[in-house]
């Protein structure tokens, strides 16, 4: 059949087009694209940390299944293999790795990295130090000789020890074991940013396969934990559930439409506007942004769900042929599409790149879908379907009931205020509580800090920030003694301020004086034993030799970069606290001391950002709603009609919002997306019901079409609503409930048929 061929060909072309565009476009999965642009320094820290902070890149590993020696050999062998993997920045297992590059730089920088120089050179202390070197000679023999020549004061081991990753529980220099001694612990720092699921997933797989292939690990078990593990697990679960439910939903839709129209050709043709919409959306996104975010595709597809209704209306009013149907449905359909476009355009203007992309995708997609429905489908040569749904009657309702309901709901919303909203982002994705507990456990055992709190110091330039950080570090020393925190990591251990470096350089005596001091303190040493050390002292430069660049090319570079960063208004340094008994108490104490360091609670700030964000979107949508009302008035002319058209969707959206907010734990941004879709669909129903029920037969057609729309959309989203994944469930329930209410409200307030 000619029509069939045409439909088939067009579908094939569009799908091919989609495939081509998708393959050319790079797909992005980084969630931070959906974060709002930061507005304060604290918010900037949060977005930075979320997108590339070290906390999100730590993978904790535990090996068990053996005791003592076997655990140790396994841990050492594994650490070595893992270090050679791509994507692994460093591996700590308690035994400091003999990293040539770092040790050499430490040796070169030792004179300015070490504090308390004058006290070290006091005769009694110097004597003790050299006696300790004698002890090392006794234990390690000839091997210790070269180190002692170059570093008789033992500066490098001391600095190295202070830098060893998170503090381990066991004696320094031995592999980390858990509290019972049954498991060996390792910490892997991933080179990939926290939300790069694909890279993290492939890294986790490689960590596991390396372990499985290791001889020393035969019969032992490996357990991985940490933010990358949690997010990969969460993403996989979401993906598999989403796939399963979308397939179910799509299957339901196909079957239902087949039953309603009894024509596979019509069902296939109905898919054309949606497919064309996706293609237009992709092309627009590609043209405007150059890439497509994975979430844009997912949510965009959802928002285009309103485009599924268009062919239903077209076929529903096609008694006299599809061409004539097109002219009949044109007005309400265009009006509905234009209104929804306004709302999507409002999202396009959002400050987050991800949401802007979503708005653009959906707007372009909707335009394409509408055009296809009105221009392409009528020309394909399809025959209209018969009627399927039995006649039913719904009681008529006065529009004033809706007004009352709307006012009631708005009043509830006004009194509840902020309670309606939930900033809890963890509800959105499925998180295995076992994994979360495992991560918290390991962090505690390894003294790795809690990944939620940071101390931030800002300054105009690098030197100012470093000096302020040193001041803060002094204060933290006191805080430590007061029991407010156990330990911390800061950049000044590796990059002291220039002022401090110059001060330390001044404190070192001239080589001749040093030689005298050494021979007085260690008479048993030959006079020429420490020449290499004295030569290094002689070669010391006048000015500060150490900066962030000193560490480039060593594994310590990334640590420096994550703790010291340029910002839009200067520089920022981060101190990572560990073992805080009471974060609020520490924040208060720092405040009392007028400290340059501020305690930042990432979770708290992130929630604040989401709240700001919601307000921003809320304002945009409110403006959009105003514009939509204006548009309706422009086209419909009669204010009474405008109100009757706007009332059902507005009431449905508000009721759904309140029911879900109060019944659940508050509305999230996913709910908001769903409500937006409900608004668009509801407006469509209302437009058709109020402008296309002028005669009995037209009313019948409208009823048929709108019922099919409601049942199909409601059914699909109800299926999504049974998901365990928070995001999907929220979306599904919101849209299913909203669509049902929209349909009921729209149909129950339909204009009475004119008595003929």
């Amino acid at each position, binding site marked *: 059949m000619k029509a069939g061929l045409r439909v088939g060909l067009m579908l094939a072309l569009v799908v091919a087009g989609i495939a081509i565009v998708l393959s050319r476009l790079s797909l992005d999965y980084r969630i931070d694209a959906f974060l709002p642009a930061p507005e304060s320094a604290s918010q900037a820290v949060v977005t930075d940390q979320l997108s590339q902070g070290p906390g999100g890149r730590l993978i904790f590993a535990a090996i068990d299944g053996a005791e003592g020696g076997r655990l140790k050999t396994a841990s050492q062998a594994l650490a070595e293999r893992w270090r050679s993997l791509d994507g692994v920045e460093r591996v700590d297992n308690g035994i400091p790795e003999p990293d040539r590059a770092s040790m050499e730089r430490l040796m070169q920088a030792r004179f300015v990295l070490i504090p308390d120089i004058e006290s070290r050179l006091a005769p009694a202390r110097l004597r003790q130090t050299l*006696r300790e070197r*004698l*002890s090392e*000679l006794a*234990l390690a*023999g*000839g091997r210790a*000789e070269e180190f002692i020549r170059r570093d008789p004061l033992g500066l490098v081991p001391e600095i190295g020890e202070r830098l060893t990753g998170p503090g381990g529980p066991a004696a320094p220099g031995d592999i980390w074991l858990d509290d019972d001694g049954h498991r060996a612990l390792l910490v892997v720092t991933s080179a990939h940013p926290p939300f790069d699921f694909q890279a993290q997933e492939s890294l986790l797989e490689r960590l596991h396969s390396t372990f499985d292939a290791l001889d020393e690990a035969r019969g032992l078990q490996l357990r991985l934990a940490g933010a990358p593990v949690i997010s990969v697990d969460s993403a996989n679960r979401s993906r598999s559930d989403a796939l399963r439910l979308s397939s179910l939903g799509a299957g339901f839709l196909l079957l239902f439409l087949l039953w309603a129209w009894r024509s596979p050709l019509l069902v296939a043709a109905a898919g054309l506007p949606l497919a064309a919409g996706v293609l237009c959306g992709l092309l627009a996104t590609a043209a405007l942004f150059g890439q497509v975010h994975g979430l844009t595709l997912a949510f965009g597809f959802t928002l285009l769900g309103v485009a599924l209704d268009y062919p239903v209306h077209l076929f529903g009013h096609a008694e006299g042929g599809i061409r004539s149907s097109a002219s009949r449905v044109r007005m309400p359909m265009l009006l509905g599409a234009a209104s929804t476009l306004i709302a999507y355009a409002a999202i396009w203007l959002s400050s987050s790149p991800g949401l802007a992309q979503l708005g653009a995708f959906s707007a372009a997609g909707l335009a394409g879908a509408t055009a296809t429905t009105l221009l392409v489908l009528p020309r394909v040569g399809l025959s209209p379907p018969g009627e399927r749904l039995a006649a039913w009657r719904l009681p008529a309702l006065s529009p004033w009931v809706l007004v009352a309901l709307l006012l009631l709901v708005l009043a509830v919303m006004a009194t509840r205020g902020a309670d309606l909203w939930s900033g809890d982002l963890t509800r959105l994705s499925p998180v295995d509580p076992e994994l979360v507990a495992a991560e918290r456990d390991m962090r505690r055992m390894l003294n790795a800090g809690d990944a939620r709190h940071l101390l931030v110091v800002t300054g105009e330039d690098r030197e100012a920030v470093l000096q302020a950080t040193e001041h803060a570090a002094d204060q933290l020393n006191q805080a430590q003694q007061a029991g407010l925190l156990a330990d911390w990591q800061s950049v000044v251990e590796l990059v002291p301020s220039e002022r401090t470096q110059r001060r330390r350089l001044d404190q070192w005596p001239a080589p001749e004086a040093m030689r005298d001091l050494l021979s007085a303190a260690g008479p048993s040493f*030959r006079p020429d034993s420490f020449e290499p050390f004295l030569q290094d002292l002689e070669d010391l430069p006048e000015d500060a030799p150490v900066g962030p660049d000193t560490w480039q090319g060593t594994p310590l570079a990334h640590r420096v970069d994550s703790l010291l960063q340029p910002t839009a208004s200067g520089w920022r340094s981060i101190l990572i606290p560990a073992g805080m008994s009471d974060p609020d108490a520490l924040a208060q104490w720092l405040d009392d001391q007028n400290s340059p360091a501020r305690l930042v609670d990432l979770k708290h700030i992130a929630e604040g950002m989401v709240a700001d964000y919601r307000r921003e979107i809320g304002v945009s949508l409110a403006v959009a709603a105003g514009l939509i009302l204006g548009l309706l008035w422009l086209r419909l002319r009669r204010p009474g009609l405008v109100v009757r058209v706007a009332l059902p969707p507005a009431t449905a959206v508000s009721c759904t919002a309140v029911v879900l907010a109060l019944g659940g734990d508050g509305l999230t941004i996913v709910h908001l997306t769903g409500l937006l879709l409900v608004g668009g669909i509801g407006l469509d129903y209302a437009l058709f019901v109020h402008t296309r029920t002028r005669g009995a037969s037209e009313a019948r057609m409208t009823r048929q079409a709108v019922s099919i729309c409601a049942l199909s959309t409601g059914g699909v989203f109800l299926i999504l609503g049974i998901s365990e994944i928070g995001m999907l469930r929220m979306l599904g329930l919101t849209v299913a409930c909203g669509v049902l209410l929209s349909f009921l409200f729209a149909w129950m307030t339909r204009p009475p048929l004119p008595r003929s």
Partner: protein
Amino acid sequence: MPAALLMLAASIPAPGADDDAAWIFQRLADRSGDSTLEFTETRKSELLSEPLEVSGTLHRDGEGNLVRMTRSPTRETQTLAEDHVEVRRDDGFRRRFSMDRAPELKALRSALIGILEADRNRLAEHFRIHAKRGEADRWCLRFVPDDAALAERVESITVHGRDSRLVRMHVRLADGETIRTKLQPVQ
């Protein structure tokens, strides 16, 4: 034929050598009292103008480790465990390093623990034992490491004693250096 006979003769332990070993270990087993010893260890170094002297006491702890509590050059407690050495000082300093980095300590620990426990079989697991009994109850035990990696660093350990007492110990390193230790019971 004569060569084979010669080899056969050489492989038979010389009469009395086995008796010597048995007698020595019997004497060691007879040691009464606690097994804490005073020691003074001397070794040379290129960095030092005079040989380095380490003195203190040594004993076995409950977990089978050899513990040296030194008085000079520093006051330290050195715990020699099977796979690591841990050093502790009064000021809270604590450091651990692997035995693999100090094979001579490993050999010394094995030998001393074996002797203090008079455990001939255990020593025979790690060393070839040569025993010689001299006059007036003096004796000498010589241990040569079996393990090839260890033998690369340590040539032999020789312990001299008299009756049930240990008198001195020499650890000969492959590079020619010798670590000499004088031993005596704690007064």
